[in-house]
């Protein structure tokens, strides 16, 4: 018995357009992903201002301090105390002094004696934080030996 030879009927899809689109998507996500602002805490509702522009030159020695409130899903405050957030832990602002002294020791170990003096303390405080607590935090940081400070805000685009 003779069999007829048939051409294979497997349809090979053209992968080129799919790869094109996938590469486009990867390029988009690479551009949009911002690895520099990983220290930003989502619980902090920053105030916004037109003049708040990102620095032209990225800073090397920075310590970001997130100050905010515990909020529910609707964004309402569940606790009137302002905390400094560090990952899952939260410390009342006025009790943050010892932690700042630890940070100073870490900075000195990393950058040598006096290295902490060049470090900029970036304060990301919630818009509703009492100003007095921000001033107290700056005072605690000064007592720990830090000298440079900056206040972060969202850029308001009109």
């Amino acid at each position, binding site marked *: 018995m003779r069999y007829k030879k048939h051409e294979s009927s497997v349809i090979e899809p053209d992968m080129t357009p799919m*790869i094109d689109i996938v590469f486009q998507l990867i390029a988009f996500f690479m551009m949009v992903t911002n690895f520099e602002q990983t220290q930003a805490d989502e619980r902090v509702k920053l*105030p916004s201002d037109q*003049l708040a522009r990102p620095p032209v030159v990225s800073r090397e020695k920075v310590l970001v301090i997130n100050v905010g409130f515990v909020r529910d899903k609707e964004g309402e405050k569940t606790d009137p105390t302002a905390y400094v957030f560090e990952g899952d832990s939260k410390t009342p602002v006025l009790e943050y002094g010892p932690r700042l002294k630890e940070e100073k020791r870490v900075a000195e170990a990393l950058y040598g004696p006096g290295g902490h003096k060049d470090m900029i303390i970036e304060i990301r405080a919630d818009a*509703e*934080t009492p*100003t007095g607590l921000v*001033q107290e935090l700056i005072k605690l940081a000064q007592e720990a030996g830090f000298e440079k400070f900056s*206040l972060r805000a969202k850029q308001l685009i009109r």
Partner: protein
Amino acid sequence: MKIRESRVAATKIEAQMAPMIDVVFQLLIFFMLTLKIIPVEGDFNINMPIGQQATESPDITPPPIKVRLIANEDGSLAGVQMNQRQLGNDSLAFDRLNAEIGNLVGRRDNPFADELEVEIDADYNLHYRFVISAVSACAGCVAPESGRVVRCVDLVKLGPPRRPAG
């Protein structure tokens, strides 16, 4: 002369697409999961040297411009003052402050225009957003035509905290 035809079939190497697609999808999923949409943030430098009162410079520097921010009990803004002058408590108070600072810096007869310093003295319970507005009003403004930032005062500091009595 007879050229012998090669019997060896053309060895066309087909690139294996499957591993590449695997890796590309891995990358895609990684970037999708790590994507965190954060609005653009900027910052204001504040001048808070330790032991700020003890200046040994023989140069005569002008006293800092005092900006006082008064709060209501709920932390909202009750009033803005600049060197004891009332600037109001409405949404335009910071625009007035910006205009006053701009006048001081822009005056031609002011020899200390580059050395001007602003001290912001806010009530303890005042919401921080008003301090940012005050710092911004002192630091400069955005030119409406070009959108460029026009700097006014670089040295802005916060006064000591006004702790509530008791």
